[in-house]
């Protein structure tokens, strides 16, 4: 049987994709499917010949006839049409449908803000600093979550996880450990209740490490609580922003406690989460310090969330600088991956995982879908960053969330509603970026974060190159991502 071919008069043109090179080969990242294909010489030549616009198939075949057999070119055109890298330009392509879930999605992660108080006074903090959403000092919410509310949050998490056999609770703050007693009793209660309803439950928390007493460390290790430490790097960087109320830095207090935690708590990998600012942009130095000197297994970096014009906000030039540093460190990750060694740059790992699965996101994250945040009084919001904000409230842990509100949110935040993103090749992986960042920057959660588009495209391109390189030279390394669910980051 002869293979199907495209009629010679058909005008074919390029559709949406981003091409990149790795390990001496050319690859396509297709948009919006997020599929990654490697090209051979013929398919690469066909794409190049169409770079200046659509052309009839016979024209194309003639041009390439000196280099490739016409049957080969015909087959290639069919294959490129199959994966939607090419299309018949006379047939209009259907827009990607805007599909909204018909019923509530099971909750995967509930972030419980057990307190909105903190023993540090980091100047850039989104909860306390200049860009805060909720007044945690004089507001209506209790400063600490009560045991009763925490138990209701557990019930909410178990109930809303619906058919999902797993539930996950992340404790957050303020400084989470300022309400350690409630956290401790809640974990005991949640384990009991989960066993009763036949579900698995696990826990994690984020802390600034200053309150990690030996008994706390013991408890976290025994209960296998996942721990993320907020820390900005070596002493001089940590102490720039992460300070106590009186302005003294927190490094001297935090560092020995972190070492004690890492020495005792071996049941789950412990990661550091770094906030990058204009003043602390030395990524490699921070990484080296946190892994080699303190002993963290993984380090994740995130630029500070801020309104433009703040002293610590990263400028456009700063983002370029940041990207080149990320690329440097990502190079180390690649070297390690090719030798099957662990490397703890978690930003690369997370992006590789998403690229490996080929997720094409309709929403930038799980907020308001599989992830929600609870404030100290039991109000449920999109995520922990909005917990306590009436404007972003979806319900309460006692009465549940409103499906109408959730639907409204899903309608107005779908990638199809973000006009600016429609021409961007990175939209399957970015989908407009963090709602909280958009709210801080532009005053609205449904705006795409246009201030870091270049950064996202640059970083995604780098991760694609790394992905292609590993896929070609050490494909077994990628197997670790095969069945793994992509976890939600909480920071």
């Amino acid at each position: 049987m002869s293979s199907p071919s495209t009629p010679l008069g058909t005008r074919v043109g390029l559709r949406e994709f981003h091409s990149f090179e790795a390990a001496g080969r050319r690859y396509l990242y297709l948009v919006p499917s997020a599929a990654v294909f490697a090209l051979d010489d013929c398919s690469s030549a066909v794409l190049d010949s169409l770079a200046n616009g659509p052309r009839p198939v016979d024209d194309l075949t003639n041009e390439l006839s000196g280099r490739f057999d016409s049957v080969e070119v015909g087959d290639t055109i069919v294959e490129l049409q199959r994966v939607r890298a090419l299309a018949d330009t006379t047939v209009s392509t259907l827009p990607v449908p805007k599909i909204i879930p018909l019923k509530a999605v099971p909750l995967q992660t509930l972030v419980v803000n057990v307190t909105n108080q903190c023993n540090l006074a980091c100047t850039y903090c989104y909860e306390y600093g200049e860009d805060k959403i909720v007044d945690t000092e004089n507001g209506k919410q209790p400063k600490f979550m009560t045991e009763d509310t925490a138990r209701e949050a557990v019930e909410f998490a178990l109930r809303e996880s619906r058919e999902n056999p797993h539930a996950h609770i992340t404790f957050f703050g303020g400084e989470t450990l300022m309400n350690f007693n409630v956290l401790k009793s809640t974990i005991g209660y949640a384990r009991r209740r989960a066993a009763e309803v036949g579900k698995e439950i696990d826990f994690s928390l984020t802390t600034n490490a200053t309150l990690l007493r030996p008994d706390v460390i013991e408890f976290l290790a025994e209960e296998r609580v996942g721990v993320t430490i907020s820390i900005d790097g070596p002493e001089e960087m940590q102490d720039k922003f992460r300070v106590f109320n009186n302005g003294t830095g927190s490094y001297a207090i935090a560092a020995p406690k972190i070492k004690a935690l890492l020495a005792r708590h071996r049941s789950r990998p412990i990661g550091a989460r770094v906030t990058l600012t204009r003043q602390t942009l030395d990524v490699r130095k921070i990484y080296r310090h946190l892994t080699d000197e303190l002993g963290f297994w993984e380090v994740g970096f995130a630029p500070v969330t801020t309104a433009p014009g703040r002293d610590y906000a990263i400028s456009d030039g700063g983002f370029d600088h940041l990207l080149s540093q990320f690329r440097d460190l990502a190079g180390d990750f690649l070297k390690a991956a090719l030798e099957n060694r662990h490397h703890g740059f978690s930003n690369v790992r997370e992006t590789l995982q998403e690229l490996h699965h080929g997720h094409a996101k309709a929403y930038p994250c799980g907020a308001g879908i599989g992830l929600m945040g609870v404030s100290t009084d039991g109000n449920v919001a999109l995520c922990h960053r909005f917990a306590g904000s009436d404007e972003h409230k979806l319900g309460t842990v006692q009465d549940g969330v409103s499906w109408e509100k959730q639907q409204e949110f899903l309608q107005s935040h779908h990638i199809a509603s973000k006009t600016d993103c429609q021409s961007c090749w990175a939209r399957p992986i970015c989908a407009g970026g963090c709602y909280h960042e958009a709210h801080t920057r532009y005053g609205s959660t449904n705006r795409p974060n246009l201030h870091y588009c270049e950064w996202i495209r640059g970083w995604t391109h780098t991760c694609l190159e790394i992905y292609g390189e590993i896929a070609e030279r050490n494909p077994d390394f990628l197997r670790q991502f095969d069945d793994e669910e992509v976890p939600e980051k909480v920071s």
Partner: protein
Amino acid sequence: MKHLTPVNRKAARVEAVTKDFVALQQPPQQPEPPHIPNGCSLVFSPGWEADRNGGTAGLCQPVERDLFDCHMGCFWPAQVPDQLNHAPDWTAKCAAAQKDWRKIDLIFPDEKKK
């Protein structure tokens, strides 16, 4: 595929679901025309509300055919005495409508049955 190699998991799925590319290339099937109770149009008897393709041009003529079909064949709830239940002999004297149409009389409610 020979010229493209799927690399990530999504690409493998794209390759799997587009295997039958010839079928995918076919223009979509014409949708079924709306279902219309075609009635007597099967025996070529114009005078119905829609023809077999759903068209409405040139209906309800000639009036004689409409009258006879409603009386005999299709029991359409028209303003015509129906043969099956109430007026079995209404057209008994009308062998050819063109010639005998005057013999079809009016029917009045049966006084005795009241």
